[in-house]
């Protein structure tokens, strides 16, 4: 059975979007089964048409960093998300956070599954790598 990797993402900024996508696509490429659970502000990253910004005042420089990444051939979050889904990375929305953040199932991107804490912990309990990104 493939080794498992789980991540929890609790923030919705640009950097927090990138980190689980880089680690998730790499782990999937290494043959691992990857599960990413988005909670609280992280949930926004799973909504359709969302364009994450850098945190705080840094948000003003999001365009600059995107340009710099494109120039250096570093895929942007929206491209990475597609790659991750192609590689079979599993994305989950926390059901309680959906209520708190006012996100409905119709707002979520295709391929995202809604889970509660117990279902996620059931996966995490068997994972060799568990990371919290927030």
């Amino acid at each position: 059975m493939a080794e498992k990797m789980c991540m929890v993402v609790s923030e919705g900024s640009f950097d927090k979007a990138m980190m689980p996508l880089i680690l998730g696509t790499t782990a999937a490429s290494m043959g691992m089964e990857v599960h990413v659970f988005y909670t609280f502000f992280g949930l926004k990253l799973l909504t359709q048409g969302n364009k994450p910004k850098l945190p705080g005042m840094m948000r003003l420089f999001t365009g600059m960093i995107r340009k710099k990444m494109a120039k250096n051939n570093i895929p942007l979050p929206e491209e990475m998300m597609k790659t991750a889904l192609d590689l079979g990375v599993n994305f989950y929305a926390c059901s309680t956070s959906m209520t708190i953040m006012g996100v409905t199932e119709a707002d979520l991107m295709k391929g995202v599954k809604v889970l509660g804490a117990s279902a996620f912990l059931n996966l995490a309990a068997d994972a060799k790598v568990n990371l919290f990104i927030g």
Partner: protein
Amino acid sequence: MDKDASLDAKGQMCPMPIVMLAKKMKELKSGQVLELVADDIGAKEDVPAWCSRTGNALLGVEQDGKIFRFYIRMK
């Protein structure tokens, strides 16, 4: 070194060389050798780690300035 296929990942930054490598290896048959060309400095450690984790043999690495050539045999 002898090779059956080559993959050019020059100009690609982590994690793309590894993502491209994993996809490309699926096209190879057991025992065939892939040459991966990369210039991401992280690839120097990442490719051997990928090989040991996935069980594909890293036959050799050649470095020419900033360019690395990895030779990987499909398990």
